[in-house]
């Protein structure tokens, strides 16, 4: 029995498979999130954020478990792209929004742990880390070497999720606070931090041959060829990724411009 989805080289079957590692990881995530989310509710986090967080837990589960997990691990680059977007760009901000207050309260204020927290949540470090992980985990030789092994496939999934949390922390949790990390800088940070995955998506879109051996040599998926699948993966990363990022950037912009407008609005004259 496989404990984590990896590229098996066997023909695809629609018979559901059980991956104990995925269930254990999801149980751990659900318990950790449940505890923090209850604290978040007690500290005044909204019901919407609470349910958004649970939706994110469900999305992570769906992307790691059968059928998307094994499809992404060994059959379809497009499923792998969906998994990347879910683990790195969609689930982390939803999870963090629901638990930002308890997380902010838990950030150490002194000592070595404080220094580590300061380093990891430094936006420049977070952005560089996210992009380094994104690039490394999309290099064909790395993917072809890691995905046939359960431990390797687990490492890539875990790295994407961790990279997503690191990327979104400065934007969502915002603790430790940094005076220079203003709204325009935050928008620039998000835009710059996600340029790399757009570049990877472009390469996948324009490539004349399949880049990844595990998908090219996998037992055939009757609906589309490996190259068509790769183009689909590039399109998903490009379009869905852009929709997510620009959607959030739009919200950030209007919140910021609304705040600026509010600050500049004419004040009512003082009453006599």
């Amino acid at each position, binding site marked *: 029995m496989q404990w984590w989805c990896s590229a098996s080289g066997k023909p695809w079957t629609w018979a559901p498979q059980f991956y104990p590692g995925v269930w254990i990881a999801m149980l751990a995530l659900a318990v950790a999130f449940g505890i923090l989310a209850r604290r978040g509710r007690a500290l005044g986090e909204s019901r919407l954020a609470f349910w958004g967080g649970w939706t994110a837990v469900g999305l992570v589960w769906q992307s790691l478990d059968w059928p998307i997990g094994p499809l992404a691990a060994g059959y379809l680059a497009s499923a792998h792209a969906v998994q990347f977007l879910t683990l790195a760009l969609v689930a982390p901000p939803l999870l963090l929004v629901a638990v930002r207050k308890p997380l902010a309260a838990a950030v150490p204020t002194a000592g070595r742990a404080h220094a580590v927290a300061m380093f990891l949540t430094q936006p420049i470090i977070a952005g560089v880390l996210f992009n380094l992980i994104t690039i490394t985990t999309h290099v064909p030789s790395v993917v072809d070497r890691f995905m046939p092994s359960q431990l390797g496939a687990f490492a890539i999934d875990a790295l994407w999720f961790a990279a997503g949390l690191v990327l979104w922390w400065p934007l969502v949790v915002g603790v430790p606070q940094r005076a220079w990390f203003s709204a325009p800088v935050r928008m620039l940070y998000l835009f710059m931090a996600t340029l790399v995955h757009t570049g990877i998506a472009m390469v996948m879109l324009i490539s*004349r041959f399949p880049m990844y051996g595990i998908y*090219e040599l996998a037992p055939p998926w009757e609906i589309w*060829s490996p*190259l068509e699948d790769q183009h689909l993966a590039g399109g998903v990363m490009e379009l869905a990724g852009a929709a997510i990022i620009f959607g959030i950037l739009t919200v950030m912009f209007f919140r910021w411009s609304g705040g600026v407008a509010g600050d500049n609005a004419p004040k009512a004259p003082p009453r006599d």
Partner: protein
Amino acid sequence: MIAAALCVSACAAPAPRHGLPLDPPLPRPSFTLTDTWGKPYDFARETRGRLTFLFFGYLNCPDVCPVHVGNVATVLHKLSFEDQQRATFVFVTVDPARDSLPALRAWLDHFDKTFVGLRGDATVVDSLMGTLGLPPAIRAAPTKPNGWYEVGHAAPVIVFTADDVARVVYPFGTRQLDWAEDIPRLLKVGR
């Protein structure tokens, strides 16, 4: 003298970068099987002087055959029309009991309508594989209630160049990019 002639024709062309070299090279075999139109196909006569890809497989193959054949087809489609006209892909079924000629034609059409499909008696095909240095196919006992069974078979694509010799075989795992690098080189060999 023959070796020197082979070297003159082969050494002038750039050597392929992928695949497994055959030492000694394999001469183009002479055999006749039935093609998908039900007519005898004399392999040596029909493919003489052409770049020829020879592959043994079967239609129920769940993984290796469709991927290997599909990769060659994809790369051939990216060649110029003239180069495509100089290449022939020949698929010999190792499972004649199940692979009827119309089924073989339909399966190959999925990849390329010009691909040649050949069928013959299993013992003849096994013997042919032996002459090419390949082990005979192993037809397993049915593993499913509907009688489905697997066929174990060697899966290299043997490539004969225009000088009617194969110097390289491509095992399963050969990528499209590998084919794209080697086919233009193989087209130059023996011209």
